[in-house]
């Protein structure tokens, strides 16, 4: 088996994540889908790292994880505070930007 299959898997997971962002309305689930996309990217980076024989890809994946952690913390805090004021976690209800 060629490691390129990992890349196909990563592409598939990424696409599933993207589709999830588009069809789910619960903000938490949307967030999970974003995490899924990030993880798919990480898998691709790790695979690239292996294919090229150096560790830079893993470093990038590492940083992606750190940034994702920061993002999750802030994002979930936002979701909680939105829920507190609006009593809903649906992304469709936060449409105040519409005229």
């Amino acid at each position, binding site marked *: 088996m060629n490691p390129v299959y990992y890349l196909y898997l990563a592409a598939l997971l990424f696409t599933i994540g993207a589709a999830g962002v*588009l069809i789910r309305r619960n903000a938490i689930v949307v967030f999970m889908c974003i995490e899924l996309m990030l993880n798919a990217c990480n898998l691709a980076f790790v695979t690239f790292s292996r294919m090229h024989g150096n560790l830079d890809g893993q470093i990038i994946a590492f940083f992606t994880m750190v940034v994702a952690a920061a993002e999750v913390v802030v994002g*979930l805090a936002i979701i909680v505070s939105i829920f507190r004021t609006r009593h809903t*976690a649906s992304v469709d209800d936060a449409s105040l930007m519409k005229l």
Partner: protein
Amino acid sequence: MTALAAASSLTSTGEAVQFWILGTVAVAGALCTILMRRAVHSALSLAGTMIVLAVFYLANGAYFLGVVQIVVYTGAIMMLFLFVVMLVGVTAADSLKETLKGQRWLAAGLGIGFGVLLIAGIGNASLKEFNGLGEANAGGNVQGLAALIFTKYVFAFEITGALLITAAVGAMVLTHRERTERARTQREQSEARVREGKQVPPLPAPGVYARHNAVDIPGLLPDGTTAELSVSPTLRERGQVRDVSGESLAELKALERRSEDWLGRSTGDEAAEPPPGGPAPREHKEGAKK
């Protein structure tokens, strides 16, 4: 896995088997994540996918990342998700009915198109051979990463450190609510309750039968109707309230009678037994207290 030959074009058969089995699990987990109605289920599916990915990292020679994936992602981030679901997602069972016109079709079309493009791109790249990490991991994967992080990527590392601190502070700022007025005393609260004409005495207790979870069964009012207030609204939202129907009451009564018969304590007051319906619940209630 540990000693991959340089510039080989195939991995071991063991890894291939592992890939096909776990890969299927990962895709299934991802699909469950986006298709499950309840956020909790989605989160659990995602956690599964992430654990599979951790295994893949290990298989690809990224031992440190594999462990970090399990500890940080599955252990910390996903648990954070579950916490928030617990905080927020009492009603989090999404209806999967689409409200935006054409959104689902667009999502499906674009998703498939995008995936096809990505896969086409990967397929067209000349990736027949790969180097493997044998050389890079020679001094140990963690040591190799550390050498890179603290030399070549030291600025990025520092900056992500600052980012993390900022994120932590930001989360606190977002969720922390400053108390702007004095906390109301118990007396003031009770007075306010009387003034507003809300429920003044304590809430009624649920009907307790020790047969189930018990708190999910509403108590009965004197006229035999259920007391809505006796059950947590959260349970009602979830649809987890057990209804006390007339049949189950009759069943209970029969059981009592049988046991009395068995105990030989029959009183012969059959005639005085009230017809099932209105007064039955009260009797039942009394019975329950025995």
